[in-house]
Every structure is written in C-alpha cells, then in structure tokens.
C-alpha cells in the first residue's frame, strides 16, 4: 500500500495540468469558472482540441480512439480537467452513445458514427426520460413501429439536455408493445432534422435553458439506425448508465469551487475582517473540505480497485460517489451564495446581450442561479433516493 503517486503518475498529472491550462482557451475556462453557460461553439471548440490530442474519448476502445490508461491516469485526467475549469467532453457523445455504439453497434454503425461523434461533427442528445417515466424509466411509452425498412416513431421525450444544440438524438423506444416493461425496448439513433420532430425549451428556475421537450410525430427512421438488436435497448441503456462511475463525484470541480470560494471570501468583508478570516466561515468551509478529501480518497480507492474487480462487480465504496459528490457540490454553491451576501439578489440574466455593467462584484451574478441550478444534481441521472434504493439492494442486500 503506497498512497503517494508514482513519478510516472506525477509526470502525467503535470503534463495534463499544463495541457488543460494552455491548450483550452482562457475565455472558455473563465465561463466555466464563473458558472456561465457555454455556447455550442465553446463546447465544440474545446472538445476538438481534446480530440486532436486523442484526449476526448479516453474511455473508448483503443481501436476507436480510446486511451490505454491506468485508472489512476483516467482519474488524474478528469481531476486536472475539472480543476482547470475545462469543459468536459460532451457526455452524450463521449460517455453515452459512443461507448454503446462501440460495444453493441455493427461495424457499419461504428464506422458511420464513432469518429464523427468523437469530433462532435455530430452533437448528440439523449432521449430517455418521458413525462410519465422519470425514476421509473422502464415505463416509457414512446413507440417505434416497424414499417418495412423504417421505424415510425411517435411519443414525447423530456429533460432532454442541450437538444437545442444537438444534431442527433439517441432514443429508447418501445418496439414490442406486448412485451413487459424492461423488454421490448430498442435503442435507436434519430437525426433531429427528420420531419415530425419538434423541440420545445424548458426554462429552469435559475432562468437558464439547458433542457427541452422533444416531440415525435410519425417520425420515419431507417432501420439501420437501430443499435444492436431490436428489443435489447434496456440492456444497452443499463450499460450506458453504469458507465459513468467515477467522474460523477466531480471531485476536481469541487476543488476548483473551493479555491474560488477562498479567493472571493477574501474580497468580501464582515466588518473589518474578510469573510474568509471569520472562524465561522472557515469552519463551515473546512467541514466541506473534509468531506471532499474523504470523497477523493474514496474515489481513488474505487479507481485503483477497478483493475482487480471482474467486470460488473462494484466496490461498495463506488456507490457513494454520486450520493456524496452531489451533496458536496450543492453545499459549495450555498457557501458561494453566502459569500456574496446581498449581491446574490439582482437577477442579471436579463442583461445578457446588452452591455450594462454587472451589479455588484462581477463574481456575484451567478451565485444564486448556480445554487438554484445545482439542485438538479441530486435529481438527474437517477435521483439520490433511487441511488439509495439501488445501494440498499445491491450492496447491503436489503
């Protein structure tokens, strides 16, 4: 047992640190740091820089552009990327549809999509959730009826993140209405330019537009857009959801938030003292730092275990990464709002586009929206309640 990084690991970390802080435009990283939304171009620019180096799809099979890294390297790559405020590669492309196609797609499908997906020549979005199917995903009702060499898709998807930026959507559709819940579902790729598709924005409580409703009205899709076998979509979806295991803790991103909070809390005053020098705030922040350090160690334990575990089995500790990680991210947004005090109040999104100066310190305007927006992290990707159900069953055997 040696909990220090090897010289090779340190060299790799420094290389990654240097790369992320020099290759990715400062303008883009600043937006991430301040919690400003990225434009479509920002995301594509950042990912293409990574992809040019082969660092956009490190989790993919090596033949299809992945890296043959140790789990520790993958961890360091994520950690440095997050600490440098670099936008992560687009999850829908890199963590979701890409691995599914690489694992289950036909040779033709792979050749048609994988390179384009890595380079964001296709920007993907995810069509899983439906109005009636949130936590209970298997109850989804969107139909894909086989008509000759086409599927006719009818139904509605919702919470579709960044559909407004996307070129294609990967959907779970019911292809066998007679089969029971988990069965009879297929994984189908749909070009959003296909007639019959309508996208409606959903504005969230922070005033932002990240998610959408996507309506399908007799949308015709060629059968070759089916991934893998018909009615096996549920297995592919489970594979997809099980994929993201460690990045989800967002330890690096939380480290970056802590650094930012310490910086800003030194600029805001309580009487004559900077907030950062008041014991109460120091201790509140330190309490979160302790939890984060513990989570980082937990994540490293999980990561360094991965080689040893046979596929599928999980280190019990892995189950807590999302639970704890989400809570820590949320607590940090609470502290950031406390830092800016009364200046959390002005709602400044309305000013976007016009050139009015920011009210209060320039770091204040996103504090409250970020707090509001981050309530989602304990809801999406399987709410923390669902996570606990899963852990109780899978890990504790209850």
């Amino acid at each position, binding site marked *: 047992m040696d909990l220090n990084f090897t010289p090779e690991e340190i060299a790799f970390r420094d290389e990654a640190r240097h790369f992320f802080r020099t290759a990715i435009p400062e303008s883009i990283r600043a937006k991430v740091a301040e919690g400003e939304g990225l434009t479509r171009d920002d995301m594509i620019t950042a990912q293409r820089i990574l992809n040019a180096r082969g660092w956009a799809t490190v989790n993919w099979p090596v033949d299809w552009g992945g890296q043959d890294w140790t789990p520790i390297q993958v961890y360091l790559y994520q950690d440095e990327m997050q600490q440098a405020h670099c936008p992560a590669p687009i999850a829908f492309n890199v963590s979701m549809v890409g691995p599914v196609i690489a694992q289950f797609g036909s040779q033709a499908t792979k050749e048609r999509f994988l390179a384009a997906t890595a380079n964001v020549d296709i920007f993907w979005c995810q069509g899983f959730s439906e109005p009636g199917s949130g936590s209970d995903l298997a109850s989804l009702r969107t139909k894909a009826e086989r008509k000759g060499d086409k599927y006719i898709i009818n139904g509605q998807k919702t919470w579709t993140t960044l559909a407004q930026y996307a070129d294609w959507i990967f959907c779970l559709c019911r292809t066998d209405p007679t089969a029971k819940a988990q069965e009879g579902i297929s994984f189908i790729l749909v070009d959003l330019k296909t007639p019959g598709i309508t996208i409606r924005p959903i504005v969230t*409580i922070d005033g932002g537009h990240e998610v959408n409703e996507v309506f399908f009205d007799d949308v015709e899709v060629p059968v070759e857009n089916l991934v893998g076998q018909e009615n096996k979509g549920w297995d592919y979806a489970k594979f997809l959801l099980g994929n993201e295991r460690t990045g989800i803790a967002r330890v690096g991103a939380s480290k970056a938030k802590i650094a930012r909070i310490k910086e800003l809390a030194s600029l805001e005053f*309580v009487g004559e003292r900077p907030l950062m020098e008041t014991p109460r705030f120091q201790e509140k922040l330190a309490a979160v730092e302790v939890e984060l350090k513990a989570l980082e160690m937990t994540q490293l334990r999980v990561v360094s275990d991965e080689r040893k575990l046979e596929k599928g089995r999980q280190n019990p500790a892995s189950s807590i990464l999302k639970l704890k990680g989400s809570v820590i991210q949320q607590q940090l947004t609470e502290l950031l709002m406390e830092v800016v005090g009364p200046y959390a*109040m*002005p*709602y400044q999104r*309305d000013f976007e586009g016009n050139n009015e100066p920011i009210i209060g310190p320039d770091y204040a305007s996103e504090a409250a929206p970020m707090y*509001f927006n981050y*309530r989602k992290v304990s809801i999406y990707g399987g709410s923390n*309640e669902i996570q606990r159900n899963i852990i109780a069953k899978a890990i504790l055997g209850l």
Partner: protein
Amino acid sequence: MDFDLSEDQRLLKDSVDRLVADQYQFEQRKKYMREPAGYSAAMWEQITEMGLLGLPFEETLGGFGGGAVETAIVMDAFGRGLVLEPYFSTVILGGGLLRRAASASVLGALAPKVAAGKLKLAFAHVERHSRYDLADVSTTARMDGGSYLLDGAKSVVIHGDTADKIFVTARLSGDRRSRAGIGLFLIDAATPGVARRGYPTQDGQRAAELTLTGVRASADDLIHDNALPLVEHVVDEAIAALCAEAVGAMQAMQDLTLEYLKTRKQFGRPIGSFQVLQHRSVDMLVAVEQARSMAMFAAVMAAEENPVERRKAISAAKVQIGRSGRHVGQEAIQLHGGIGMTNEYAVGHYFKRVTMIDQLYGDADTHLSYLGAHGGLFGKAA
C-alpha cells in the same frame, strides 16, 4: 396567553387570504410580473382600497393602527401568493421609518399619502462592503449653507426603482462604522443627482442601484440626525414581517409537495406511498411548524423596547426561518424531482423567495453569531 385572533384580526385575515386566493394564482402572478413596473397597478389599487397601506398608522392618519400581528397576517398571505407589489418597502420599511423616526408634522403630512396609495417609499442602506451592518455607512452628507449635499452609492434598494421617495442613510459625522452620526434623509426620487438603475431580483421582485451625486437635501429632508437605533428597530420589525412571509411561502411549498406526492405515480403507485418520502414530508412539516412558531415569537418581540432583547429574539427567528426555509425549499424541489426545477411550475418560485429572504437583513448564520455572542435565549438559572 391566547393564540386566537381577535374579531378584527380574523376579518383582516379572511379578506387578505381571499385577495390572494382569488387574484394571485400563479398564472395571474406571471401577468403582473410582465407589467412595466414589475407588478400589477390594479393590484396596488386593490391593496390600497382594502386599506392595507394604512395598516401601521393611526386612524387619524388614514390608517387602522395595526401592529406586528396584523402585519404578520398580511405578510403570511402575501407569502402564499408571492405578492409582487411594493408593500414591504412602502408600508413596512417606509411606514416604519416614518412612524419611528419622522417628526409629527412629517408623519402627519406623508402617512395619509402612503395610506391612500399616492406615495411609494423605499429604504436605501446597503453599500458595497456594508454587507448586513446597518452602521457601515460611507455615503456622506455635507452641510452646505442651510442644506446638505449627499454623495455615495446604495445597492439592492428593494423596489427603489418605482419608489416616489427614498429613505437614505448618510453619514453626518464619525467614521465609516461608528454607530453615531448616521443621518436618515428622505429624498424625492426626482431630485437632481439621484440616478437609479432598476432590475429584477432572483425571486421575481424588483430592486435598484442608487447613486447620489451632490444631491441637495433640505434641513426638512433630514428626518433624523442620529437614526441608527430607530433604523435598527424598524429593520427588526421588517425581519419579523419577512419571517411571516417566509412561513406563508413554506406552507405553500408543503401543500404543493403533498399534493404532488398524492397524485404523481411511479412504479404503478403514488410516490407518496413510499415510506421514505412520507418521512421526508414529516420532517418538512416539522420545519414549517417550527418556523411558524418563531414567526409568531418575532411578531410579539418586534415591539420590545430593549434593543438587545429584541434583536436576540428577532435573530433567533431569522435563524429558524433561514434554516427551515432552506430545508423545506430544498426538499420541496427534491421531492418534486425534475418538474420542481422548471420555471413553469410554482414550487421553484417559492424556493427562490425563501432563499432571498435568507439573504435579506442577515442570513441565518449571521444572526446565529449575534445570538451566541449575546448569551442566547435562555437564562443561566430561571
């Protein structure tokens, strides 16, 4: 001791509750928000006709001499409706400052106008680095002949964009944080040198940044030349009012969440049938009831003349409201799931309002520090 409302209080409650129930449905509120002022002129009319604007003033001044309990009744209802009109800034802050700081003649001249809906007020005190310290005043008032010249900048002046007159704290003497020498001026918003920039707040209300450049104020405009203790009392009353509003908003979140748990189905059953969500709802109930109790406590103690006893009680209430509000708000969103995150649905707006109430006049931990440093609530030995 008696928690029952008097006949008059019950009538007041019924009428305000009805107003909110009939005219402040979530969809109606959206319309009001889109009006130029950021609130409904018609609603302001109606609030005026109901006589609510005169609440704190004596009948001789066109009011009905209501106290903290009457104010709490109104604010609780306004919290359930997320009311947008500038009642808090005009009646509770402005009216309070008039009653406690102004001369009889000024009060006599202005209170009836406020009661008649002809005069909207605001209170400007936040400065760039003052945070929640009312004594931290850098804005200056220099004697110049028989009058004063005011220079400085004030931030987050609630409903400062539509106020006709604005109360402003400015330093007559002493250094930046000294408690003495703080003057309270009442400035007409149209006075040359007054620049306002209005904007919406996170909770859908309005506020303004205020810049004062050589603003001339007459000796009469100086409402009080050592105003801090009075300002602090008014702010304590204002906090008590915000506590009541927050309780109304929490109750609404509790109701919306229960309703959702009973109707939303997943895995073939109402999600309210899941034991975990049942217990989480119970803990929400506990938080709401504890907050309600402390809002009542604040209403009683807002009139206390001993400033430390009053402030300790008000701080205790603000702590409870801040903590209950955060818990209830976060849980309301969490138990709703995705739908709770959308702007089209009401619960998130209540969440944002209680969140902003915590940022107003000191967040929970700021008040906890004060309470702790001043010996807490209970004596060493009864």
